């Protein structure tokens, strides 16, 4: 399933962060392999968002370093896409323009757009066509000329995901992306993520590099187990918890392509394990007890050496 995991995209080495005297993150070591769809769960206040922002690069951690493809970074860049729960779209652009916005900013400069206006117009047409195609792929062909304000929350998040995906980011970060949605819409969008997983699998079967690497932060345990092939638990409930939260759970999750049958038993037992290991303040264990993902797969990514 994750045999190609040794190809590490993102690495966090000894990340630590504090707000004033309050220690939030403590010695986080994490490697994410290309093509993994990773869910990050944790009790509220455990610093999930802080970790995500450090990985995104907008708020670098005070200690430790983050590396992408082996290169350290401390700023956001086009290699890491993000979908937030709120404010995920530019309200002054139509859906189509929103999706094409990244292509515009990334592929051209303001100088080019001004002084080579006619060439830019030609290029713009290609960008918009690519955006329309992607919107149709996520089932939003008919709303391309509407403004985000006119869409439902679920549609907006779809557009936001398309907007991030069109950049082909090395890592796509989703920050509680479906938190504000109703149950039915949430399931539709989870299915959309499973489709991305299916594309990854298809690429693996064809011997190619899987196209999507995703880190999704969620407070919904079910969602985490359902959409990801690897679950991370970030928690302050471990032997060194006063120093801040760290990764206390890291295991593969049973994930299935959209329409294949699912093993509910495996699902339930992992859920119970997670509840105990990550969310329970009664059950304090050594933080490495459930951090077995790489060992389970007989691999040793650079970060763990």
């Amino acid at each position, binding site marked *: 399933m994750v045999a190609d995991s040794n190809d590490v995209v993102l690495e966090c080495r000894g990340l630590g962060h504090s707000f004033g005297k309050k220690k939030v993150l403590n010695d986080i070591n994490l490697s994410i392999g290309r093509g993994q769809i990773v869910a990050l769960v944790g009790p509220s206040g455990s610093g999930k968002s802080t970790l995500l922002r450090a990985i*995104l690069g*907008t708020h670098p951690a005070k200690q430790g370093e983050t590396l992408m493809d082996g290169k350290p970074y401390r*700023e*956001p*860049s*086009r290699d*890491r*896409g*993000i979908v*937030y729960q*709120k*404010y*995920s779209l*530019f*309200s*002054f*652009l139509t859906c189509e323009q929103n999706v094409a*916005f*990244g292509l*515009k*900013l*990334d592929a051209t*400069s*303001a100088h080019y757009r001004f002084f080579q206006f006619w060439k830019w117009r030609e290029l713009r047409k290609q960008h918009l066509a690519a955006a329309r195609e992607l919107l149709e792929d996520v089932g939003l062909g008919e709303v391309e000329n509407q*403004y*985000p*304000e006119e869409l439902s929350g679920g549609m907006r998040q779809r557009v936001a995901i398309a*907007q*991030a995906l069109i*950049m082909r*980011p090395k890592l796509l970060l989703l920050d509680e992306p479906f938190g504000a949605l109703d149950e039915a819409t949430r399931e539709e969008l989870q299915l959309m993520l499973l489709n991305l997983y299916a594309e990854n699998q298809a690429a693996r079967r064809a011997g190619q590099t899987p196209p999507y690497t995703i880190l999704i932060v969620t407070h919904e345990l079910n969602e985490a187990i359902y959409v990801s092939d690897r679950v991370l638990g970030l928690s302050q409930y471990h032997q060194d918890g006063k120093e801040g939260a760290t990764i206390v759970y890291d295991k593969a999750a049973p994930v299935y392509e959209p329409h294949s049958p699912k093993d509910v038993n495996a699902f339930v037992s992992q859920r119970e394990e997670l509840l105990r290991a990550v969310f329970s303040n009664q059950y304090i264990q050594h933080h490495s007890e459930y951090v077995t993902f790489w060992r389970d797969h007989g691999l040793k990514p650079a970060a763990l050496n």
Partner: protein
Amino acid sequence: MLRKPISRRARFGLGTASVVLMLLAYTWLSQHRQSTVRREQQEVAVMKVAELKAIENRTERQQEELDKWVTLSKSPDAVDRTVPTWSVLYHEGWVRATSEQGSFKRKEVWLINDFAATAKRLVVGLIVGILCSVVIGLLMGCFDTIDAFMLPPFTLLAKIPTTAVLPIFFVLVQINFKMYIAMILAGMIPTLAQAISASVRKDVPEELIYKAYTLGASRFELIYEVIFKQVLPRLLDAARLQIGPALVLLVAAEWMVAGEGIGYRLRLFYQRTDMTVVFVYVILLGVIGLVVDYALIWLRRWVCPWFGE
């Protein structure tokens, strides 16, 4: 019930009624003034006639005067110009304002001359003022250093009533076209730049900025393509609201020192307590203000269709 909705027809009817009522009130007031003035004139005429008739041997001049007063006592012709009637308003106000006046050497149509002079000052002042405010406001909203540097003087300047600063301008700057522009800038930039900077801070959530970075935006692109476009509708509204204060300032300054322009003409007629041309100017100012306001609202809807009504 509070805020109970009414039909469109009722709304239109009430609106029309209020305007008609206003016009009727003016008509009544002007007629009342006119008849009062004439009655007073008649009373004086009657007195004069009695006085003159008492003289036994009237000189030729006294006889002429008597004839004049007799005519006036029968049909007084005084015209009230403080609240002129509609016909006076038209003949002495509108016609005088829109036909050539003055000696053969310097003939001018007041209305066109005055409005053109004021409009030129106002438009140039507004354009320069808005451009400066947008640049300063965006920079203040984007960079804390610039904000920290500009905010204290702006906060202070914005609190000073701009008309109170007029004497300083008259003394420090020569009274010419540039002075009016400088004045409008001084009145406008502190308020408008602050409004724009506040909008940048309030209406552009950080998430959008981070997102733009992940989409490959440079710093300039971030300011122009994201922040500017996001605050544009608020900016247009804020600029629209600055036109009124700028015009107040301009008319006040013209009233004091100008040789042409709306304020200048209003002062001339005020000195003669002749409201005919004044009323014509005032009504026209109201109409133009209304048109410009709606034009700018329409512009905002056209430029920023996403912003809604």
